């Protein structure tokens, strides 16, 4: 493509954000919707223009305008899918905030547009420091979104969100400074091929880990997430769960694994340990939540643990599975937060006990909610199943104990989601106001239906999403090959019996 599409995708929402500040509330809504839809169009063009099986880095731009680092952009398949996820969720977020945000609408829309620019920037930056700037700058709009438009306890949540993530990122910055000195470059693709001394790798890995583990979030530094989610407005939660959490996983796959393969292999036990605790512990915590958003927030932590388990399995199934979980979780947990938002807008409470029997008066809503509940549980045919299955297969190959513990997470996941669904959609309504709630409006249809379609698509034909990422996973595996720890599965090539069976079956049919 001849025009700098990635720069346009970053600068357009920034320009629109500045513009919306000067508009009236209604005009700001339309401007934001128009911009995000335009960006979605550009995202589709990006996907369409991406040459699957072509060079690893495409749409590359490089302008050394900052002296010490440059405006270097470019994407591989992994970044492409995450950008597409971001631009897909954004118009939905704007629609979801259409009526529920009443005060300071232009500023709200501007903050969201800014967020979008920064997210695209994070996924497309090819310069380490440019990445850091985008990565860190996202704190400002998100801090404002939680703090201004959040719930009752929003101040504490916004501080927690900001300071936790800032602390993690700053340690990463020190590591980046050292790396740029050592390798003499800030170019991410070059750094991905650079062999850092093994003894330094451990420190660097830990510094990056501090940042990505907080962002992910991994147990035990996940505590900012439930607070932030509960207090953020619905669209804020969608973006937080849908895209911002993916930055942690993206960081692992872009920095930790390829740049420090030896350290990653050394510290696999740490990641597995933390992830195993997260899967079981946060699932149990989710089971006893009284607040719907908190429940889904804890389920996010549990799902993100599948991502880390898959990534550190050091094999194709694991890594591809982790990527699929990231995409699927982005859609499904985003949709679940939207579902909560729909009923929150009507009753202004997130307390589960205040609902019940919604399948009677809100049948369409109950249908969507069930659909996403099932997707979250990992029902085959829906998005999460593909990723979780692959991640577990990969984990089993690496360490069967981890796989066994992680699988209990799926069972617990089914337990807390179904329990939530029963309490909200079935049984007797908690009050007259609950029973009188209207079913979803056309606008809410517009927010939920596209996600449902995408979830189904991802579950039925994941190849569309896996294909662009396949070569990138291959190059990552090549990079990891020398360091990958031996799994405990002791794989052996299968015997050719299957073929004979196949031929026999073939013969019988005649």
């Amino acid at each position, binding site marked *: 493509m001849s025009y700098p599409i990635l720069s346009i995708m970053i600068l357009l929402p920034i320009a629109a954000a500045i513009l919306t500040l000067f508009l009236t509330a209604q005009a700001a809504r339309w401007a934001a919707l128009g911009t995000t839809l335009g960006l979605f169009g550009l995202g589709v063009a990006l996907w369409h223009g991406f040459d699957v099986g072509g060079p690893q880095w495409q749409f590359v731009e490089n302008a050394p305008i900052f002296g010490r680092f440059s405006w270097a952009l470019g994407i591989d398949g992994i970044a492409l899918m995450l950008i597409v996820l971001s631009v897909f969720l954004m118009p939905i977020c704007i629609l979801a905030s259409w009526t529920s945000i009443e005060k300071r609408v232009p500023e709200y829309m501007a903050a969201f547009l800014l967020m979008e620019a920064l997210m695209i920037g994070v996924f497309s930056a090819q310069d380490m420091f440019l990445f850091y700037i985008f990565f860190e700058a996202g704190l400002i709009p998100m801090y404002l979104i939680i703090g201004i438009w959040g719930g009752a306890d929003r101040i504490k949540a916004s*501080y927690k969100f900001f300071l936790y993530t800032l*602390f993690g990122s700053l340690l990463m910055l020190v590591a980046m400074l050292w790396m740029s000195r050592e390798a003499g470059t800030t170019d991410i693709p070059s750094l991905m091929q650079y062999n850092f001394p093994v003894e330094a790798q451990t420190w660097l890995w830990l510094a990056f880990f501090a940042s990505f583990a907080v962002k992910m979030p991994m147990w035990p530094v996940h505590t900012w997430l439930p607070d932030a989610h509960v207090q953020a407005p619905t669209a804020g939660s969608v973006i937080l769960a849908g895209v911002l959490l993916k930055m942690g996983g993206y960081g692992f796959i872009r920095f930790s694994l390829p740049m420090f393969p030896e350290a990653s292999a050394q510290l696999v036990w740490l990641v597995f340990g933390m992830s195993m605790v997260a899967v079981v512990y946060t699932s149990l915590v989710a089971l006893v939540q009284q607040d719907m958003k908190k429940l889904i927030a804890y389920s996010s932590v549990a799902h993100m643990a599948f991502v880390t388990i898959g990534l550190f399995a050091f094999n194709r199934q694991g890594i591809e599975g982790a990527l699929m979980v990231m995409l699927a979780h982005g859609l499904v947990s985003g949709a679940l937060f939207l579902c909560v938002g729909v009923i929150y807008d009507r009753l202004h409470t997130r307390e589960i006990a205040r609902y019940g029997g919604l399948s009677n008066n809100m049948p369409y809503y109950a249908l969507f909610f069930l659909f996403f509940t099932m997707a979250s549980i990992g029902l085959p045919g829906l998005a999460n199943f593909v990723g979780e299955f692959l991640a577990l297969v990969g984990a089993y190959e690496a360490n069967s104990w981890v796989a066994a513990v992680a699988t209990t997470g799926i069972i617990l996941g089914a337990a807390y989601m179904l329990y939530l669904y029963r309490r909200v959609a079935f049984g007797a309504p908690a009050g007259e106001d609950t029973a009188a709630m209207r079913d979803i409006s056309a606008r809410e249809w517009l927010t939920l239906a596209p996600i449902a379609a995408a979830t189904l698509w991802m579950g039925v034909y994941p190849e569309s999403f896996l294909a662009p990422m396949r070569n990138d996973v291959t190059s990552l595996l090549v990079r990891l090959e020398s360091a990958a720890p031996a799994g405990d599965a002791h794989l052996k090539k299968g015997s050719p019996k299957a073929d004979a069976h196949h031929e026999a079956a073939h013969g019988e049919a005649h």
Partner: protein
Amino acid sequence: MSVIDSLMLTLPELVLTGAALTLMLVAAFAGDRATRLINAGAIAALIGATLVLGREGVGFDGLYTADAFSNFTKPLIYLAAGVSILLSTRFFAAEERLRAEYSVLILLAAIGMGMMVSASNLLTLYVGLEMQSLAAYVLASFMRKDARSAEAGLKYFVLGALASGILLYGISLLYGFSGTIDYHGVAKGLADGVSMGELFGIVFVLAGLSFKIAAVPFHMWTPDVYEGAPTPVTTYFGTAPKVAAVALLVRVSIEAMGSAVASWQQILIFTSLASIILGAVGAIGQANIKRLLAYSSINNIGFVLVGLAAGTEAGVAATLTYMVIYVLMTLGSFACVLQMRAADGVHVEDIQSLSGLSRRQPALAAAFAIFMFSLAGIPPLLGFWAKFVVFDAAVAAGLMPLAAIGIAASTIGAFYYLKIVKIMYFDEPAEAYHPVTSYVESGVIALTAVAVSPIGYLAIPMLGTATAVAAKALF
């Protein structure tokens, strides 16, 4: 070098001296009525002094050095001094009355500061420093009818005199043990191992200078003086003398003590970390915006010292970059503080009065938020770049623990900057402020806000080259 050549080197100082004396005469004859004219004259003199900069060489037999380093820092000092004059007119007209001596005092201080950065001899250093300090003591107590201002002036004077004494003692020790007061001579004296007497000299000189830059543990005067002094004077204290004192410290450390890096590096590392942490922790409980900014300046000086502690050319360049960005952020923040006026026009300093500013005056709140995020070092604002370069220099010099602790401690600092943003953006609106009336002040706010916004990143290559050239002059 002939006397004429030497005098030509000091042309900026000569221009300022001539202007200061002339304007003082104008003030004596025309009185306070001519204040605006005198202010304009003073600014013209500062611009003139900037324009005649550029000569390089060593004058007066090594007493005075004009080089790329001094030519880089002087415009920054003159800029800060000029803006402090610009910001003063409306403030003094509203608070007490315009008085003509203000800009003359600033000019006299600017001469002293010029000598500080150009000093290559311990006595020139002392004379320059005292010239700047004496003007500063008067400026701190400039509001004659205000008890706080008088108190600030007195405090500043007593503690400043003490610090000058310590500095002078250090200088005398260095002189006694190395036999010279010339920077290069002292460096030669230190090169063959640091004797106990020389070490004491170094410690005392650093202690005296730490007072001038308000670094922990010699920072105690800062919050009181910042709070008590009239806001335009606080703006001045926070910028120009800081630049001059840091530049002076850099030159002394590198040129005079450069052969004994190991003996002062640990002192600077301690001072730096202590300033970062104490500046951050001390600011948390503050209710007065000027006190908060005072702690913020202590915190920032800590980061500046990180660059200097590296002791390398890159470290000096980083220090200079930090000072440029710091001056911009400080000028902008104080210009915002000057807009904090109750409906009747009286200036307020209570942080709570900022409540809900984003709904009362969105543009002002946005600018203030930009300065706060920038001071906290959050990208994409330019304050991040300042921290980036100093930590980069520290990492390159192998000071990993300093970098890691310093950078982690900046999270504490982020907390109170966030508090201001929180008050402006999340809280319910308080009583409305007097609307912004001065074009000059809104212009200063707008320009500095744009400069520290991401647009400022485009200036990085230029700034990088200029600071590198300036730093090279010292090595």
